[in-house]
Structure formats: structure tokens, C-alpha cells
């Protein structure tokens, strides 16, 4: 019930999470979360706010250390990795943060080229051209390259964030609430860009969102997190017939149902 077994059929999954637990003080956010994401698969994790979607992604990226459990990336255990071993794993990641998290002291192209300059030692001139190519891929022109993030609209910042996430051609992409704070049209544009980028790179993608339209568009498979666990997972087409009351309540946005509060009892 909690796992979808069809995903992990072929090879070792790109991401394999077992028994993940994380608490902040008395607030147990994740307890015993299991999840597999197959290679080249795009999975969306949905759930109400405060259910630990962000905490899940931060654990996988390594921004937070889990209390217990296992996170394997391409078959390699990553919990507890530090230093250059951690850097090697991070080098295969690309992350689009919720607020884009662009470095505001740098220009747009410096943001996009950050990983290329700092990790790969690419000369600045070359990195600038590479960044401009990536910006073109997300629909931004050369003219935007020398502007500062603060001068851009929210949608443009998201595009730059996306360009930065894909700049180093990562194998695994993370999208944290990619459409939050955007209008419906811009949200749709970002969704299209994400699908395009993920397919273009042949990457594995993990998206967390509470926007069902976005989840349906981006993901091959959807998993719902509730009470610190994955309570349902299945292909994006199956979610209407999940037969799960919690899932039904969430996707139809009903106020009555098993989901009572945004934060479950500790």
C-alpha cells in the first residue's frame, strides 16, 4: 500500500528511501517514510502544507540530516556523507527552490554559471556563454543576463532558478513548489519548461507541490504524503481512482474528510 512496486522493476532506483524519520523537538515530521523513484522517472509528492514535503526533499539533498532511515542515490547510501563524498552526490543534483533562491549579489548569468565556475573551474567568459545558452532554453534573452535578480519578476526569477538548476546537466532534479506564487499562465509556462528540461536531460525528477494541475502535468507518478508517511503512490492517471479517502479529499480540495489540521498531532 505504501509503496509502488512497479517503479523499482528494472534497475536500482535513482532514489530509494527507507524508514526515513525526522523530528524537530517534539514535532515528528517524518516517521518511517518509504519511497522509490525510478531512473528517468518524474515523481510528484503532494500533500497539505506542514506534512513534511520540504523536509523530505531537504533530507534527500542533504541539507538536513535524518534522525534515522536510509536514502540511497543510485544505490549509494548518502545519509551521513560529508565533505567530498557529499559533493560528488550533490554534483549530480539540480535544485529549483521555492522562492528561486537566486544569489542577489550576483547577476543573472553569474547565478546560472555558479556551478560551472566554482565546481568545474570553467573560465568566466566561457561560463557566461554557457549560461546565456541555458537562459535561452528557459526563454530568457541575452539582455537579461547582466541584470540582477531583484530587477526580475517572480516568473522570470523562477526561470533563472530553473536555468541554474539545469546548468550543470544534473541526473536528478528537485523542484520545490515550482508554481507557488505564480499566476496560472506563468505557472503553466514553468510546468512546460520543467517537463521540457527533464525530458531533454533524461533526468530523474522529484517535485513537491500542492498544486494538482502542476503535479498532473509534470509527473509520471504521484505520491501523497500524510502523517509523515507516503499513504498512496501511483501513476498520475490513476489518482482520480485512488480509492483513498485522504487522497480524494486533497485532490478535490474538500474541507470535510480525514485531513483535519495542517499539522498532525505530535
Amino acid at each position, binding site marked *: 500500500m505504501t509503496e509502488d512496486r512497479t517503479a523499482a522493476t528494472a534497475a536500482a532506483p535513482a532514489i530509494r528511501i527507507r524508514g526515513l524519520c525526522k523530528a524537530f523537538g517534539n514535532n515528528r515530521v517524518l516517521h518511517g517514510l518509504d519511497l522509490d523513484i525510478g531512473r528517468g522517472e518524474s515523481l510528484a509528492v503532494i500533500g497539505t502544507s506542514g506534512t513534511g514535503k520540504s523536509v523530505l526533499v531537504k533530507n534527500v*539533498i542533504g541539507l538536513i540530516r535524518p534522525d534515522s532511515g536510509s536514502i540511497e542515490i543510485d544505490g549509494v547510501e548518502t545519509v551521513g556523507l560529508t565533505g567530498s563524498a557529499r*559533493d560528488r552526490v*550533490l554534483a549530480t543534483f539540480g535544485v529549483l527552490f521555492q522562492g528561486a533562491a*537566486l544569489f542577489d549579489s550576483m547577476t543573472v548569468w553569474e547565478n546560472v554559471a555558479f556551478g560551472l565556475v566554482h565546481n568545474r573551474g570553467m573560465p568566466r567568459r566561457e561560463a557566461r556563454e554557457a549560461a546565456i545558452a541555458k537562459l535561452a532554453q528557459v526563454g530568457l534573452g541575452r539582455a537579461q543576463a547582466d541584470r540582477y535578480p531583484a530587477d526580475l519578476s517572480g516568473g522570470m526569477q523562477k526561470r533563472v532558478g530553473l536555468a541554474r538548476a539545469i546548468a550543470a546537466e544534473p541526473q536528478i532534479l528537485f523542484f520545490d513548489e515550482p508554481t507557488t506564487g505564480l499566476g496560472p499562465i506563468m505557472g503553466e509556462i514553468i510546468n512546460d519548461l520543467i517537463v521540457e528540461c527533464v525530458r531533454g536531460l533524461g533526468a530523474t525528477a522529484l517535485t513537491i507541490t500542492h498544486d494538482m494541475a502542476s503535479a498532473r502535468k509534470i509527473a509520471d507518478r504521484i505520491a501523497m504524503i500524510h502523517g509523515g508517511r507516503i499513504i498512496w503512490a501511483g501513476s498520475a492517471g490513476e489518482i482520480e481512482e485512488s480509492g483513498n479517502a485522504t487522497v480524494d479529499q486533497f485532490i478535490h480540495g474538500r474541507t470535510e474528510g480525514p485531513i483535519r489540521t495542517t499539522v498532525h498531532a505530535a
Partner: protein
Amino acid sequence: MNAVASVGRATLNFLAATGRLTLFAGTGAMHCVRPPFHFRLIGRQMIEVGYYSLPVVGLTALFTGMVLALQSYSGFSRFNAESAVAVIVVLSITRELAPVFAGLMVAGRIGAAMAAEIGTMRVTEQIDALTALSTNPFKYLVAPRLIAGTLTLPLCVLAADVIGVFGGYLLAVNKLGFNTSVYLKSTFQYLEVLDVVSGLVKAAVFGFLIALMGCYHGYHSRGGAQGVGTATTNAVVSASVLILAFNYLITEAFFAR
């Protein structure tokens, strides 16, 4: 019982905070001495800490030197010891006033700026983004600031020494009727290398403390704009208190017989 419990809780919190700060300082210092170095960032911070602080540090030193000459003259003239004015000015400036005042002014300017910048980066997930781009925030944000603070504040203080003594000289010669050559001669007659060096050592320690407090409070700030505001205040207040405390400790180490 409640009073005892709250004392206990406060003690535990204090010890936890001390531990956190010590670990932070240790990690930061380790990244200062271990390559690779981000020379571009270190240079930018040195300009920020040193060059842009010079006007405010210089003005502070100038007026301090002048006030010192005026006050010590009005005091010492009561028992015909006016000749000590030059010595008092140069020793007070180099040993105490230049490093402490420069430290406090730079704490207000730079400590606050560092806490606000790093704090904003924290609450807007920019520090997480750095980590996700496999860049260690200690290496990239903290170490350049610690290095810049430690290396640059002594240079500021050296300038403040000269300007402060010059302030005292200007006032003594122009207002109090001292003879130029006599005043200069007595300025340098009793000045020892240790007087200046102790001031510069203090400056290096203060520079490190200012950058450490700015980075530490910024790095651990949370909760949006208000959190960044609190971090900024804490950075300036804690740096100022630590400067005064370490000033005593270093003075004790250098001059206690």
C-alpha cells in the same frame, strides 16, 4: 522550584549557545587556513571592512585624540604636569582607544552588514542553494569574512593611531600653545614598539570577533525580516561586549606585571 528551573534552563541554554558558537568558530577558522581560498571574495570583503571603514574610523580617532589632549591638559595643568600630555595621548591612542573605538565603529558598520546579508541569504534559502550547488557556505561566506576582519582591522587601527596622535598634536600646538618640536619629541620619547603592537594584536582579535558575530548570528537567523533584524542587533551587541571583554583580557596578557 520554578525559579530554580528557570535558572537551570537559562544555564543550559547559555552552555548550548556557547558550544554552538565555539563549533561555528572552529569550523570557520578551519576553512580560513585550508585551501581552496576564494581570493576574489576575500579581496571584496577586505575593501568593505577596511577601505570603506576608514572615514568613520579616521574621524573617530581624530576627535578622540583632540579630546584626549584637551582633557589631559586641563587635568595635568592643575599640578604643573602639562608636559605629560603628549605621552598620555600617544599611549592611550595606540594601546587602548584606537583599537577599541575602531572595533566598536566597525562592529556597528560591518558586523551589522554581515549579519543582515547572511541572515537574508539564510531566510531566502540562498545558503541552501549554495550547499545544493556543492559549495560549502563556511568556505564561501564565513571564511572570507573572518580572514578579511582579522587582516584588515589592524590596518585600520594603524591609520587610526596616526590620525589620533595627529589630532592631539593639532590641538596641543594650535590651541594649548605647545611648541611643535617639543610636543613631537615627547610623543616619540616614551613610545615603545609594544604599545603599537599590542594595539594591533587587539585589532586582529576584534576584527575576527566582529566577523564571527556577524556570520554566526546571520547564519542562524530564522523567521523572515524580523529574524534578520534580531540577528543584526545581536551581532552588533555581542561583538561590542566581546570587544570590551577581550580588550581587558589582552591588556592583562600584555601589560600585567
